């Protein structure tokens, strides 16, 4: 039984949070989401991108639908269908507004005509979609159930009577043929009574002189009425000659105030979640970057990702450059990844990637990479370097510590913690001491974590800790590779090499100053 294209059933529907999660900004997920939802604001999809799912079944449900929707023809048809239903509904709501007020300027047969036409579009879209879905091989429960729902709906009494009423009205209205006599400022209306086509007759009278084809003097003129009130008045006059048909139209408008099925309407909005995301990742796939559907695990036995990348960074690099792919793996009892190495080497990007993968995986989307097994978290906490906050009068160190305290209190063994370059505004000795305390606290909580730091000492604390480093090119130590690899921290930040490049080591600067 079909419930929603985003949730397998009502029980598993998580309460949507319209608020952006706190960790979005640090992980640049806000940038990613706004790119995905560009142009889609009318569908109000933000909540679905903000709310992680807690249930692997729900995640698989969405992944299967997304996989089905990759097929280009099906995607095209669903896009068309969803847009038609959604736009029709918007117009119908407007129309009903007008028709509910008997005094309204817009309560006329033109508007009723629009309603009828929208109803016809709706019926045609439903029928077309039913036919389309019959032909496709659908693997996902979501789309198969929807196909079944739609099929049953199309055969239901309610739909059949709507559809046949619409067709009957339309074919009756097609028989209407009237004449207007326009004389100074007056229009009179009667039925068309077989009067002859004047233009054709004129051509016939002079046809005998024709020697060869001549020029076409017709102007291109629009068939839309200039003034609605005049056209509406004309229609009222026409209605007096075709009372039966127009009364029928009136009855239709009263009876079928809102003919759109709720579930289908919801589908037309919710399916845009998949459409928006698939459209977004297409630009990456086109240049050869890979996406995969991660396995979301409830245990931390083996967490990994192969050849992935930071989506926000990638979005700003392509198509001129391609982001460097990175991988990670954590096998029990490994719990924390400590990332050290040269500045600007891609460490923070790596940390963000870790967070992004988990969040996107948790809402059922395909993630960057060739394969992934990710942890089904209950929350993500980020501790990123804060700006000095004059208002709170706290120094940086104090802000860092307050935040850390907060996180330690809230985090559970099912959480993810991502830390980036904290404790930088204190002495090395204090930073190491605080750092070790922090690591201990995390180990006690048992949460998975990634910690980007300049403190190599933290990287070799215990078997639960994995050390990874950002690397440089061998022949030119100034050049970053952006590859993060498992390695013992080797203590050199390579800052000296940069200084050398600019002639600012002690020796080099000394020589310069002597001149």
């Amino acid at each position: 039984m079909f419930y929603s294209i985003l949730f397998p059933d009502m029980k598993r529907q998580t309460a949507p949070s319209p608020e952006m999660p706190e960790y979005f900004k640090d992980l640049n997920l806000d940038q990613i989401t706004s790119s995905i939802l560009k142009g889609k604001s009318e569908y109000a999809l933000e909540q679905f991108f903000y709310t992680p799912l807690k249930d692997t079944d729900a995640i698989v449900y969405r992944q299967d639908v997304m996989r089905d929707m990759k097929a280009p023809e099906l995607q095209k048809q669903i896009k068309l269908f969803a847009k038609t239903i959604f736009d029709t509904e918007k117009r119908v709501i407007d129309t009903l507004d007008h028709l509910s007020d008997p005094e309204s300027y817009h309560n006329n047969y033109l508007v009723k005509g629009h309603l009828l036409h929208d109803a016809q579009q709706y019926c045609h879209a439903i029928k077309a979609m039913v036919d389309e879905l019959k032909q496709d091989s659908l693997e996902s429960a979501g789309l198969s159930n929807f196909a079944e729902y739609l099929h049953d709906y199309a055969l239901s009494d309610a739909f059949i009577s709507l559809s046949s009423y619409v067709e009957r009205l339309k074919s009756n209205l097609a028989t209407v043929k009237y004449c207007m006599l326009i004389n100074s400022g007056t229009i009179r209306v009667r039925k068309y009574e077989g009067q002859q086509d004047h233009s054709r007759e004129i051509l016939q009278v002079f046809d005998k002189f024709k020697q060869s084809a001549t020029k076409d003097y017709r102007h291109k003129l629009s068939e839309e009425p200039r003034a609605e009130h005049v056209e509406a008045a004309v229609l009222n006059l026409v209605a007096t000659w075709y009372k039966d048909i127009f009364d029928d139209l009136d009855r239709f408008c009263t009876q079928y105030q809102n003919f759109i099925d709720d579930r289908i309407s919801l589908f037309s909005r919710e399916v845009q979640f998949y459409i928006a995301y698939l459209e977004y990742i297409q630009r990456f796939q086109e240049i050869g970057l890979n996406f995969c559907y991660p396995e979301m695990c409830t245990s931390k036995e083996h967490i990994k990702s192969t050849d992935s990348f930071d989506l926000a960074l990638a979005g700003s690099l392509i198509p001129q450059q391609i982001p460097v792919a990175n991988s990670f793996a954590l096998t029990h009892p490994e719990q924390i990844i400590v990332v050290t190495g040269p500045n600007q080497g891609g460490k923070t990007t790596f940390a963000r990637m870790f967070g992004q993968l988990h969040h996107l995986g948790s809402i059922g989307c395909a993630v960057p990479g060739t394969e992934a097994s990710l942890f089904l978290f209950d929350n993500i906490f980020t501790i990123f370097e804060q700006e000095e906050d004059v208002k709170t009068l706290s120094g940086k160190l104090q802000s860092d510590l307050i935040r850390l305290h907060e996180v330690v209190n809230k985090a559970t063994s099912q959480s993810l913690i991502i830390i980036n370059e904290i404790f930088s505004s204190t002495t090395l000795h204090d930073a190491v001491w605080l750092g070790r305390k922090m690591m201990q606290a995390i180990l006690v909580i048992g949460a998975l974590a990634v910690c980007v730091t300049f403190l190599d000492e933290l990287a070799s604390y215990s078997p639960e800790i994995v050390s990874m480093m950002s690397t440089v090119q061998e022949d030119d130590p100034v050049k970053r590779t952006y590859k993060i690899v498992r390695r013992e921290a080797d203590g050199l930040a390579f800052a000296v090499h940069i200084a050398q490049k600019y002639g600012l080591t002690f020796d080099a600067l000394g020589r310069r100053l002597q001149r």
Partner: protein
Amino acid sequence: MKAHLMFKDKDFDIEQEPPFGKDMLVSDLELNTVFSAMAREDKVIMEAVQTALLCSLKNSDEIRYRQSVLKDCIKNQAAVRKLYALTIETFERKRKEHWWYSTQYLSSLFSSAVSLLQMLIGMLKKLRGIADESIQSFESSGFVTLFSMLQKELDDDYFSLVNQHLNELKFREGTLISARLGHYNQGVAYVLRRKQKKCFWRRWAFAPSFIIASRDDRGAADLSARRDRAINEGANAVAQSADHVLDFFNALRNELAFYVGCLNLYNQLQQTNLPTCIPEIAAAGESCREFKGLYDISLTLMLKKPVIGNSLLADNQSLFIITGANQGGKTTFLRSIGQSQLMMQCGMFVPADSLKAHISNGIYTHFIKEEDAQMKSGKLDEELERMSRIADHIKKGALMLFNESFSSTNEREGSEISRQIVSALKDHGIEVFYVTHLFEFANGYFGQHLSDVTFLRAERLKNGTRTFRIMPGKPLESGFGEDLYQKIFGIRE
């Protein structure tokens, strides 16, 4: 409605491309003088006569058709000129009075098209009037068909029908438009309708109505947009109808132009007291050149006085070699052959007392030219190249006129070249006229005593006077250049 005066069953294409060699024909036969005399500054006549003369007819029925129409024209000059003048007047009036024919705004297109059409109806009435008064005096099938058609198609009933329509187009009782319903009930597919004659107001007076308030500008704009949509087709119909009538007048003018040109020429020749006649066409298969008093028409037009005519009786001849004293009238004779052939084959009269000839399958000229101004090739080169191009096109049954060709080398070589070329042409059924000083060439043929070769000579009296007559005579060795020398250097014998 067709005006088929040039051909019995098809239109005359005034812009038809003339066949290969047209420029040479025009300059060698001095045709521009003839064209100007016929056209008398009228551009349409100029175009028509050029096309007619240069695009020769090959079918004797077609020629006789035109001859009979021409006879009618000569007999009824005033009526024909009146008819032609009517077509000219129509276009003049359109140009002067209806130049503001505007297609940009629909309502102005409509009104200007109606007004133009009304003018054209008036001209059609006049046309019918001419048909009525003239039909008795014309005999040719061309004119009789034309006039009867005009009487039949433009009868009184027709004009009253047209008037009725034009009256209705004034929309005195309003515009009647039919419509259907579009996809949201808006009116679409507007068609302008005719109002029924009977009981119109009885029905419509009480029809449900809607009145636009006096200050309702948008409503007023809407009403005129409605009318525009309806009269879009109507305006197109009227404008196209006007175009059709104009096209008919144009076709009539093109068909008449040639004959008016002939009349112009005829009158001029009459004034100079020179004869013209309608030539007789030889039967198919016959080879016939019989004429009396044939003269060079452009020469006479230029001199504005009579010139000497020539006579000949030559049947089944394929080669004519013309020799004789310089300035003896040989070139003019050659020209008169070419001119009369073209004139006969376009259905005109010819400049002679009488003439009977067969139809040629194309006429080509090869006359002596000024030294190549650009000195691209030697004179002989140029002549041979020109001949080669003719050879690409010339076919059996054609008429080839040579004037002093291939003499830009010594007599022996020139004769040999000419002999070869002429033999080839003759063997392939091409009729050749050759004016030449190449004695060896001429004598060569003379010696063969062939039955189909005629020798003509420019007449020279014993005292040296040229009579400009071309008479039968064998080729002589001297060209009597001595005479000229005497004359110019004034040395008496």
